[in-house]
């Protein structure tokens, strides 16, 4: 058993770089077990143990993700006003849907929906499942359709990769998502309902406090940027718009501000990562009349936001 433990530690150590490279925990372990030359039976025992740990986030069904996301958005919207402008709302929902149709996960349980917040802050939030909120202040940083697309594509990236769910503390999930797997088919009794609702609120709290206060890790932000670049290119926008947008924000953000500045890595770091990824790749070219049409509808919808 000791040998298995030692092997497990060795495998874990080897697995970490794979995880950093974006593999999930299970596949990282498998890769690492192979590299470390661990016996098949031991590797299996390690994998089983790892699965018990890693199970929770994967075990959230799209339906549960939907209810979590609705609550996260409802929490964020309480105390924040939505911007009532039909033309602007219609425009970002069309652009957002065009983008989400082209992303790596076009369909979520309840679909992607976009809303503008009536706030001068520079900020955006993506609730699990696809409820995406952006502020007027952030949209004012954009001077073209491509720039707005870059903002939305980054948020869609967070949703597609389920970054919000990763913010939930593991112990909550084992209790809520796995623990009651069989009992929840029936209607919950008053005690169970109370307990489950408390766990639900705590999970929602984990996500909202990450979105509002602590922010995602630098790795997850860069991952969302990477997804955004692919999404923009797939649709036919110049992905460099994301770097351009970050340059504008860099100028406008106040150091120590309570908005985007607090929850996101330094734009400089993101810009240099983006430039590295775009190096040597020709951007999609828009014909002059198409570029003019994009600019005209951008101006009409968001020109005076």
């Amino acid at each position: 058993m000791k040998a298995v433990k030692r092997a497990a530690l060795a495998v874990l150590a080897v697995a970490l770089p794979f995880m950093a490279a974006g593999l999930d925990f299970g596949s990282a372990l498998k890769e690492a077990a192979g590299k470390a030359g661990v016996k098949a039976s031991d590797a299996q025992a390690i994998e089983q143990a790892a699965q018990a740990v890693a199970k929770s986030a994967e075990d959230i069904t799209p339906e549960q993700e939907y209810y979590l996301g609705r609550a996260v958005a409802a929490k964020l919207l309480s105390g924040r006003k939505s911007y009532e402008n039909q033309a602007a709302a219609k425009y970002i929902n069309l652009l957002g849907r065009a983008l989400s149709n082209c992303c790596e996960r076009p369909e979520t349980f309840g679909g992607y929906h976009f809303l503008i917040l009536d706030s001068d802050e520079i900020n955006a939030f993506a609730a699990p499942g696809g409820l995406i909120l952006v502020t007027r202040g952030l949209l004012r940083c954009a001077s073209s359709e491509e720039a707005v697309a870059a903002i939305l594509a980054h948020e869609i990236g967070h949703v597609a990769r389920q970054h919000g769910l990763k913010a939930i503390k593991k112990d909550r999930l084992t209790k809520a998502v796995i623990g009651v797997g069989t009992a929840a088919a029936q209607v919950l009794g008053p005690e169970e309902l109370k307990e489950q609702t408390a766990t639900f609120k705590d999970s929602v709290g984990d996500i909202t406090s990450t979105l509002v206060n602590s922010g995602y890790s630098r790795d997850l932000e860069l991952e969302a940027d990477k997804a955004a670049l692919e999404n923009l290119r797939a649709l036919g926008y110049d992905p460099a718009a994301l770097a351009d947008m970050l340059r504008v924000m860099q100028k406008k953000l106040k150091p120590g501000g309570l908005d985007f500045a607090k929850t996101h890595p330094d734009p400089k770091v993101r810009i240099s990562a983006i430039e590295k990824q775009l190096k040597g790749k020709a951007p999609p070219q828009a014909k002059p009349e198409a570029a003019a049409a994009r600019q005209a509808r951008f101006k009409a919808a968001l020109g005076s936001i």
Partner: protein
Amino acid sequence: MRRIGLLCAALLALSAAAAAEQPKSMSVNVKETQVRATPGYLGKVLGTLAYGDRVQVAQTQQGWVKVSVAGKGLAGWINESALTAKKVVLSSGSSSASQEASSGEVALAGKGFNSQIESENRKDDSFDYATVDRMERAVVAPEAVAAFLKDGALAGDAGGGK
């Protein structure tokens, strides 16, 4: 000896082929999804399926799955992000379904965080569900998206291709 080797090779090839094959049936894993005439979001909508509906898989192509729906006379393409290989069992209270749920091959609808929890959570007025409902109700018509793409000379039909 050589024959055994050949036999092994043949068996391996067979099992590899079996592993690469799509599961024969899949379930809709979103609230609702459209079946389209061609693989892509610009494809004509032939019908709509709901959460838990079972489909028979014919082939897959760049993120799109060609399916047929028994009993509905419906056949066409669904984006793979709307499907799961697990069987989605709606929680209408059958006890056999809840036993199956532990096998990992069944996704039990309504498990864990569900509409009942949301109803409970709605009693807390620090959540603005009214605006969330309004967000979800706003419909973006496929025709409007198609026109938006056309006017801006955008591709837009990649549809989740990886």
